[in-house]
């Protein structure tokens, strides 16, 4: 019991404390690829400290939504963290409280609050960003649903801890054509959902071209810090789902001993760093898509995911 709680806290701490580092590494690597030096990998921590210390300003006409949204955005990735295998490959406390579809719904709550708060702030760019995010979101939705359905075909379950075991027992599942198709589709969705490059430019500062970031323009001080941190954690959580549940379910702790958990922390962080290297390669080689081409990007993801499903059903 106490062990399980300790492991849950370790999972939360892993996501909470290391997610800004991953964001920092990603930025730094991208700058290095562009032959620049780039900010320190610790820059996101400094940003957060700075923002927490600042005064907060709230638009006069905004409602409670605007004040509540940052907290929701901050807490939601932490709730999802409890449902997924972050460090252990045996189920913890809340493992059966919600499946992957449930985690998707929980993320939808934060998306809804963010959208409403962006409109509530009264900034025209906020409303524009909100509508664009919704566009990307509803185009990504079918892909996520089909990926999860295919996963449930393979593993007869949508509980992440059970799915994870099915890719490696037997190992043939891991090499199945449907698996690699699924991974590509899900990777494309991660890029779209976290506002990475072919879809949205995370370093862009031009309001008219922003998709994700313009929603946060009106937030300041602590709210801005919470939203930023929530964004880092969302990226970390989606990467962990991608890596630990779908791609490489290796390197997780199989017992609750502190040594095992420590090794798992290092290995999972290493896996995320490798994923970051791949994302850097993708981001450095693609230009941002025009807004109405995003539908093509996600249509491609959709077709890949449906191909995966057909391939799986026909047992190819």
């Amino acid at each position, binding site marked *: 019991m106490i062990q399980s709680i300790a492991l849950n806290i370790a999972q939360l701490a892993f996501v909470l404390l290391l997610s800004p580092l991953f964001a920092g590494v990603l930025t730094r690597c991208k700058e290095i690829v562009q032959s620049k030096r780039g900010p320190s990998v610790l820059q996101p921590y400094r940003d957060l400290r700075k923002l927490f210390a600042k005064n907060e300003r709230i638009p006069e006409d905004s409602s409670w939504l605007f004040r509540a949204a940052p907290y929701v955005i901050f807490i939601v990735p932490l709730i999802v963290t409890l449902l997924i295998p972050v460090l252990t490959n045996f189920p913890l406390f809340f493992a059966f409280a919600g499946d992957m579809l449930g985690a998707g719904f929980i993320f939808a709550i934060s998306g809804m609050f963010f959208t409403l708060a962006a409109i509530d702030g009264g900034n025209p760019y906020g409303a524009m960003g909100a509508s664009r995010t919704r566009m990307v979101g509803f185009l990504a939705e079918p892909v996520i649903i089909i990926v999860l359905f295919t996963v449930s075909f393979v593993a007869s379950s949508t509980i992440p801890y059970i799915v994870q075991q099915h890719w490696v027992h037997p190992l043939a599942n891991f090499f199945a054509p*449907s698996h*690699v198709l699924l991974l590509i589709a899900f990777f494309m969705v991660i890029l779209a959902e976290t506002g990475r490059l072919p879809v949205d430019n995370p370093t862009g500062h031009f309001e008219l071209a922003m998709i994700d970031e313009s929603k946060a323009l009106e937030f300041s001080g602590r709210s801005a810090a919470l939203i930023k941190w929530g964004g880092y954690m969302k990226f970390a959580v989606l990467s962990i789902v991608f890596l630990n549940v779908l791609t490489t379910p290796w390197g997780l702790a199989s017992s609750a001993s502190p040594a095992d958990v420590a090794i798992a922390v290092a290995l999972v962080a290493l896996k995320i760093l490798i994923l970051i290297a791949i994302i850097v390669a993708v981001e450095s080689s693609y230009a941002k898509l025009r807004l109405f081409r995003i*539908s093509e990007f996600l*249509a*491609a993801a959709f077709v890949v995911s449906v191909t995966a499903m*057909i391939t799986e059903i026909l047992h*190819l």
Partner: protein
Amino acid sequence: MTQLVIELNALVLGLFIISTIAMTVTRQIGACMLIFVVQSLLLAASAFLLGASPFSWHLFALGCVTLISKAMIIPWLLRVLTPKGNYYRRELSQAIDIPTTLLIALGLTFAGYAFAQHLVRAAPNLSPANISMGFAALLVGLLVLAVRTEAVPQLLGILAMENAAFLAGIAIAPDFPLIAELAIAFDVPLLAFIVALLTRIAYRQVGTTEVGALAALREGP
């Protein structure tokens, strides 16, 4: 050992079908060609894997021929012979818009799988998945041919269809007569050579290689 070969082959097949679908949606000739190279490498990989156990000289020969002619000579020929400048990076037009193309590609993949089921049952074969994926990729290659309006991507569509046919073929007839291997070694680069030359001349005369634009007669420059 054999089990591992089958598993790796399945992985290669998944990537093969992806690369074929990707070919229908890329907007640049350069990217299209890169995908073709990847596809050829995957075909060679599948031939090597299927040829490894039980050992088959023919499949190894096919893999080598594919590697040399399709992954090296053809891209090189096309690079050297087709027009220079931004020809490779400029955006291509398509007969049908990309989301529709993708949906058609999905339908064709499904149809390919369905057709192949009969063939899988009818013919003794090494790997049923090869036949299904090969058929699906064959139909998607046909789609590339149909939706592209430029000469070089259309040629790549034909070559993609050929790759797909071989992918299915190596599972049905692992012991090709040598003549088939020689045919792809000489025929296909020749085809690429001729089309590339034609493209070059057409580009110099007309300023475009869009097939639709070449339908009307026009005086020289």
